[in-house]
């Protein structure tokens, strides 16, 4: 695809910039160099969402779409709420696209992820659900995904530059259509905070003081669950971002920084200050169980993705959901607080390469991808409460519930946005026998010396083959 326009820009002037989705003007004092933008682009970050959203490109409709016929879709959306939401979108697409017959194959989320490599090399469906970031670029560079630059040309006017960068492979081609994203933040119940006269903490000391107070009030201050292994990475990410900044996160995820770095030690030290406030027996709890502690007013706060709202819908009621609110992770008093960084993973749809039906279905598959890029479709999808935010510019914000609207705002305020540890780093490091295990090991005795653990992490990283 050659050089994209933003690569040519030596420097972007700082100033104010308007943020789509929110209709707000934000002060922008980012001093982005070409290198920075390249890094962001290469990193699949949403950060450029803020930095570069001014640039709208001319729309060229060159995509070869087809109506009628058939196509197939492989989905990992196996939880009840998103599964039904996608099925509804598919039904709507079928009637909108001249009766295209869509075969929807839903696979258990974890299984789908575990088998993705053999799935994509075997006989996959035409289109599949996946994640942006390193995880998308990995399969793109292995030649297991079809570039969809033509689809992107048709829909890119509906996306900000940040999203455009998030779906680019290492070769500069576009490989995915982003359909949703969600921020990680500290969730709480408004009624519980009102009942005890708690105020939302903005700095580390207030945060810890609030934890102490909650404990004396008989609450679990911070709900936490790590039987699944990945939730702990969310806390690691945010502490690392607050203490060491976005660039260090990038360096750590890509192996340029060492795990033995004292900056990592600092993260573990800081983390140990709040682990005493965690749910008892958290290593044996699933995230749903910890979310239930929040629903049932047993716990005060919970650092998780916006998808925690799904559990409020499933375990609680609409009234419980109305009480759900959140705040960004408090500042820790470092120079990187100003980045307001957070994890906001983007979920995408991609086209496979080896689907046996792709040659005949490619037009329908592309039509489906374009359909998913419509704001109206995305708002319909998220109207069912899947705990994520639409990505399209023309998504009707008046249809957002207050929680989604606030989530969109908190992301737009962030100057640096990361995906999530397991989307930003290589999967063999982030998996159950890597990072997940290391963090569980750390959490078993958080206050002990982490030098040995960090050494193990580095030697494990060093043992991984070339990618």
């Amino acid at each position, binding site marked *: 695809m050659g050089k994209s326009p933003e690569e040519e820009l030596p420097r972007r002037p700082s100033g104010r910039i308007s943020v789509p989705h929110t209709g707000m003007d934000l002060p922008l004092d980012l001093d982005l160099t070409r290198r920075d933008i390249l890094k962001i682009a290469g990193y699949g970050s949403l950060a450029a969402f803020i930095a570069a959203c001014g640039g709208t490109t001319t729309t060229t409709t060159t995509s070869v779409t087809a109506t009628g016929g058939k196509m197939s879709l492989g989905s990992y959306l196996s939880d009840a709420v998103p599964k039904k939401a996608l099925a509804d979108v598919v039904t709507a697409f079928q009637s909108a696209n001249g009766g295209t017959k869509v075969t929807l194959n839903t696979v258990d989320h974890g299984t789908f*992820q575990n088998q993705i490599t053999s799935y994509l090399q075997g006989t996959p469906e035409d289109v599949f659900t996946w994640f942006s970031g390193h995880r998308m670029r990995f399969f793109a560079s292995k030649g297991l995904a079809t570039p969809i630059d033509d689809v992107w040309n048709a829909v890119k006017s509906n996306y900000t530059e940040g999203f455009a960068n998030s779906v680019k492979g290492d070769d500069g081609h576009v490989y995915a259509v982003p359909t949703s994203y969600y921020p990680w933040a500290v969730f709480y119940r408004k009624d519980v905070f009102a009942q005890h006269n708690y105020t939302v903490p903005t700095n580390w000391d207030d945060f810890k003081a609030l934890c102490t107070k909650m404990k004396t009030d008989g609450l679990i201050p911070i709900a936490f669950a790590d039987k699944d292994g990945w939730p702990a990475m969310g806390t690691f990410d945010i502490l690392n971002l607050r203490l060491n900044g976005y660039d260090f996160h990038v360096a750590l995820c890509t192996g340029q920084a060492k795990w033995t770095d004292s900056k990592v030690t600092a993260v573990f030290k800081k983390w140990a200050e709040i682990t005493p406030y965690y749910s008892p*027996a*958290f290593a*044996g*709890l699933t995230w749903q169980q910890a979310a239930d502690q929040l629903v049932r007013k047993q716990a005060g706060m919970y650092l998780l993705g916006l998808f925690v709202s799904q559990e409020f819908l499933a375990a609680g009621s609409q009234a419980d959901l109305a009480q759900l609110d959140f705040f960004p992770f408090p500042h820790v008093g470092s120079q990187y607080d100003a980045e307001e960084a957070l994890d906001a993973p983007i979920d995408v749809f991609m086209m496979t390469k080896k689907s046996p039906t792709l040659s005949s279905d490619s037009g329908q598959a592309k039509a489906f991808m374009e359909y998913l890029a419509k704001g109206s479709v995305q708002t319909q999808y998220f109207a069912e409460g899947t705990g994520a935010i639409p990505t399209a510019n023309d998504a009707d914000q008046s249809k957002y519930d207050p929680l989604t609207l606030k989530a969109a705002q908190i992301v737009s305020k962030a100057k640096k946005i990361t995906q999530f540890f397991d989307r930003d780093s290589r*999967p063999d490091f982030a998996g159950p*026998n890597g990072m997940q*295990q290391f963090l569980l090991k750390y959490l078993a005795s958080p206050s002990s010396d982490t030098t040995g653990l960090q050494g193990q992490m580095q030697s*494990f990283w060093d*043992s991984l083959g070339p990618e």
Partner: protein
Amino acid sequence: MARTTSISPAAPAPEAGELVATGRGRYHVLTRYDRRVLAVMVGIPLLLEVVLIWWPVVSSIYLSLTNWDGVGDVTPQNFVGLKNYQFLLSGGYFQFWPAVAHNFIWLAWLTFLATPLGIFFAVLLDRDMRGTRIYQSVFYLPVVLSLVVVGFIWELQFSPTDGFINNAFGLVKSGNIIDWLGNPRINLFAVLVAASWRHVGYMMVIYLAGLKSVDPTLREAAKVDGANEVQIFFRVVFPVMAPINTVIVVLTTIESLRAFDLAFIINQGKNGLELLSILITNNSISESTRVGFGSAIAVILLVISLGPIIAFLSQAMRTVRS
């Protein structure tokens, strides 16, 4: 088959068992038809054996010398020699030796607790007590369930806050929650309780079948000679049951080497539940796709498994010969 054959000159339609002259003046014991039948009867199992067993074994060994990531073809650049093994055995992969240890703890637990308990139940149920059929069914019921279902059932018992055990003993209310599934010091034993729940019934049924076939006159003779129940079992019944005992030992060993399902259901085999089979899966079948490295672990598990397999085969052949 009779090995003695009379040498006779080639007949137009030779009988089975006769030597048949071939074109170059050699003789065959079998007719052409016999040879075809034999070729089919040996060839099909051999083909299956090669395709389903030897080919995977050889390719595992081959892949274990590479750092192949499961995508595309294996290229010469993928070859790393014995680096995977070196890394594993030197303890560089921090989960390898714990996994080996957990497999052996699994083996020891089943051998010294679960299997003897199953045998004990079998002996009790063999004594024509009232309701023996009901007890048999009750103990055997878990065997009918798949290990995945067993895993879910026991997860519900062990779950720290919602689980039956912690709630039944009031540990949730009093705030002394025991983290059966998340504490790496105890979760292996929690899983072993679940595994035993199934294993005991399995062993019981096999042993019970064996006990039924023991000649009752042996017991009566021992009783007449003044032996008590314990003596009868250990001195008379147990030695007679030698073939069944071998089967029990082999099954117990196999169960502990292939242990996978329960630990994987509970937390994908991390945090104290590492097992060799899970390390293989997590490395080579998961998203991480370290197929070469996972194959090296698989080869090590194969070597460990060869011990009991050889022991079993030599025992089985000895039994056949005698």
